[in-house]
């Protein structure tokens, strides 16, 4: 391991045959403008930028030359990819930080494509299942994919919806089911090591933050009077205590979505890092024999990740339901007597 750390420290002075573990892993788990398929073949995804000179779009192939070295592309500004991000360069080859901040990158990246593959898959699957229900009616037993999906839906309804939302569950089931299946399928696709998968969508903090924001909005839009009362003026306590609790409770409103964001992001990223690290052992030791240990471990971790992928999707949906349930709960005024 010392050797690995040393190699990591010496990444700047890279020699031929040297293997940069941290760099490789980070490169794999981070978003990218092109999707590597195999060898030197990759899909170059479109780059869409908005600057003060307006929108511009170009292929990400312009950002690298035929030797796969990153080069400057002269659009409205001279752009270059630095650590996966598109930066505006100065004439002398340094980053123009001022101009770079004004660049708003809404490119179709690897994660975006992967995410929309998931969207496509989900729509195909669930419209098909819905059609099956319409065709066979409710009197016959579920068939094919329907019989695989139905228990999962019932599981989410009975383990997530009903315990936390009670009779209000049907109102929020579409949200809970969508968020659960969206995360789950993204997690599963992330575990597939080649083309349609391999993107680390659910391990990307922007993705998890967005989903957490949906939960945040739904929680606070549906929050009942009691919910706000418990935040700003906790009933049953002395005035001093009420004032003391107010900022804490208010902070809690924001900590909830943040915890959702970080939990999913950290779990999925950790899984990817773990699998990649185990595979990297082969390159660190520079011996095929290392795979005798690395491959079984990778398989083991991958199987665990399969489980984690489901559990994290379930936990995200469950906590969302819990937060919504806390917000819409109607307290039957039970004053705390101290």
């Amino acid at each position, binding site marked *: 391991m010392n050797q690995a750390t040393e190699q990591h420290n010496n990444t700047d002075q890279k020699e031929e045959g040297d293997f940069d573990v941290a760099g490789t892993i980070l490169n794999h788990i981070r978003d990218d403008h092109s999707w590597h398929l195999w060898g030197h073949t990759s899909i170059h995804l479109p780059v869409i930028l908005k600057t003060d000179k307006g929108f511009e779009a170009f292929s990400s192939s312009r950002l690298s030359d035929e030797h796969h070295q990153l080069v400057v592309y002269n659009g409205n500004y001279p752009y270059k990819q630095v650590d996966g991000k598109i930066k505006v360069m100065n004439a002398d080859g340094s980053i123009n930080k001022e101009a770079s901040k004004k660049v708003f990158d809404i490119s*179709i990246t690897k994660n975006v494509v992967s995410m929309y593959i998931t*969207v496509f898959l989900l*729509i195909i699957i669930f419209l098909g299942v*819905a059609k099956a229900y319409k065709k066979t009616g*409710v*009197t016959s037993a579920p068939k094919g994919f329907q019989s695989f999906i*139905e228990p999962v839906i019932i599981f989410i309804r009975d383990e997530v919806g009903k315990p936390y939302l009670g009779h209000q569950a049907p109102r929020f089931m579409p*949200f809970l089911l969508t968020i659960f299946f969206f995360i789950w399928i993204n997690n599963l696709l992330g575990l597939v090591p080649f083309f349609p998968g391999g993107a680390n969508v659910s391990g990307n903090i922007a993705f998890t933050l967005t989903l957490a924001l949906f939960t945040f909005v739904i929680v606070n839009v549906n929050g009942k009077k009691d919910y706000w009362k418990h935040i700003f003026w906790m009933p049953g306590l002395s005035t001093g205590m009420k004032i003391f609790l107010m900022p804490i409770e208010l902070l809690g409103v924001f900590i909830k979505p943040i915890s959702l964001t970080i939990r999913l992001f950290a779990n999925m990223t950790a899984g990817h890092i773990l699998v990649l690290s185990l595979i990297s052992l082969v390159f660190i030791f520079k011996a095929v024999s290392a795979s005798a240990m690395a491959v079984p471990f990778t398989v083991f971790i991958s199987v665990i990740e399969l489980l984690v992928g489901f559990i994290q999707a379930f936990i995200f949906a469950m906590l969302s339901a819990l937060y919504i349930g806390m917000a819409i709960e109607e307290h039957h005024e039970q004053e705390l007597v101290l």
Partner: protein
Amino acid sequence: MLLEINPLVLPDPGLMIWSALAFAILLFVLGKFAWKPIMKAISEREQGINDSLATAEKVRAEMAQLKSDNEILLVQAREERAQILKEAKEIKDKMINDAKEQAKDAAGKIMADTQQAIENQKMAALIDLKNQVGNMVVEVSEKILRRELSNKPEQENYIKQLTNEIKLN
């Protein structure tokens, strides 16, 4: 900026926009065309299963009820039979008793009538006897009167003898 230390924990706004769009599309499309019919179908199926189970339970309860009703009917029928038998026996006994009573009464009446008849006959016989005695006395008296009334002791003896004869009766 602290967050700029590691690009991994820096949310990319572009990706956030695409994520929000993706989730919104999913929520709309699936919510409208998938979750609604699926949830409806599932709850309908569950409702159907629950209804069937409830119906089966009800039918079973009805069967049990019928069975116990039958048993109650059977017991009642048995009791009724016993009652009827008892009543019949009572009626029979009563009839026999009544008949006995009547026979006794009739016998008693017959006896009384007979006694009455005997008494009457006896009285009639006595009257007849008395009449005959009277006649006899008249006859004896005639005979005595026809005989001379000289022999006084002899007369007295004779009267005594006659009197004795009468007593014999």
